[in-house]
């Protein structure tokens, strides 16, 4: 449970990941109220220690829904205190969406956590096999 599992995404430093994907990793400081660094690809060195509950970062697996573009890197190590809104901003920048385009995140494919919800809490409630699976969907929600 405490170990980060192996996966196909190269455990490479962020800069290498950047050029590989052909996209800029966004500046995490742009997220409202969050001065922390953007999520790093899971498995990169130094992300977790052994104590499961004391992990500062959790593994998040991002899955696209419908026609939403698929992220080249799907697995990320995310700080527990990062909010859903901050994650939305990150995915939007990664996918190069415009600020006014909407993206929503779901747990269990049945519930959208509110924007201020922390990822760590979601992991405690909905995480399994050491990771939190989140689906994201680019869509208009009203109009």
């Amino acid at each position, binding site marked *: 449970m405490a170990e980060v599992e192996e996966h196909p995404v190269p455990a490479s430093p962020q800069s290498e990941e950047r050029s590989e994907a052909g996209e800029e990793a966004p500046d995490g400081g742009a997220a409202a109220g969050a001065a922390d660094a953007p999520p790093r690809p899971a498995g990169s060195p130094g992300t977790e220690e052994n104590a499961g509950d004391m992990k500062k970062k959790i593994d998040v697996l991002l899955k696209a829904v*419908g026609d939403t573009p698929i992220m080249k890197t799907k697995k990320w190590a995310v700080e527990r205190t990062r909010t859903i809104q901050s994650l939305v901003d990150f995915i939007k920048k990664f996918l190069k969406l415009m600020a*006014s385009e909407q993206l929503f995140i779901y747990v269990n494919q*049945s*519930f959208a956590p509110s924007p201020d919800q922390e990822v760590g809490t979601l992991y405690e409630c909905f995480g399994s096999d050491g990771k939190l699976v989140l689906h994201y969907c680019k869509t208009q929600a009203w*109009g």
Partner: protein
Amino acid sequence: MCEEDFFLEEKRFKQYCEEFIKHSQEIGDGWEWRTSKDLGDGYLSKTQFQVRNRSIPPDLKEKRSDNIEQALSTHAEGSLDDSQVAGVCATEEVIRYEYHVLYSSSYQVPVLYFRACFLDGRPLTLNEMWRSVHACYQDRLQEGPWDTITQQEHPLLGQPFFVLHPCQTNEFISSILTSSRKYNRHTNYIVLWLSTVGPVVGLNLPLSYAAVAPEQNTNADAVER
């Protein structure tokens, strides 16, 4: 990718609402089912108070009720002089929100109606309502405020309410449901929809709603936040 349309029939709407109310009662979330006197139609209803600091987005956290007590007792203190009162009013305001979920037979989707007023009874104007939309949706809102929230007559009560435009509801719901159906996951339509659009206007569903389903299959059962 083939997407099906998940148009909601009224009967199914009522079933989902029933499931929703049941869970609300279990966790004390305050939703109730109301029926209109003349017609057989019913709708979900909830009233809640929000305290807002004018310089930051609405306080959406669980400690809402503590803040309200604090704010109300501050307002009630007779010993405040004018400058103190002005100071309090300039930074905090208590707003009473009323949310209704009605079924629209023309769109075949649920629709969110809501109204809000300050403690002195003054209703929020449309502009004030637009300004109160959560910061993260402001970009999209400003592109088309009239597409987003407008004022309409409540179909059953005949009073002016704000309404969140339902035109896109079927599209985004269908995206998610097409996907979740592959996994045989039961999703409560109301929970899916309301958890998505509610936060736009200050309405947040506690996480335990994510487990609303006949078959419980995740450790979300243990949620009690």
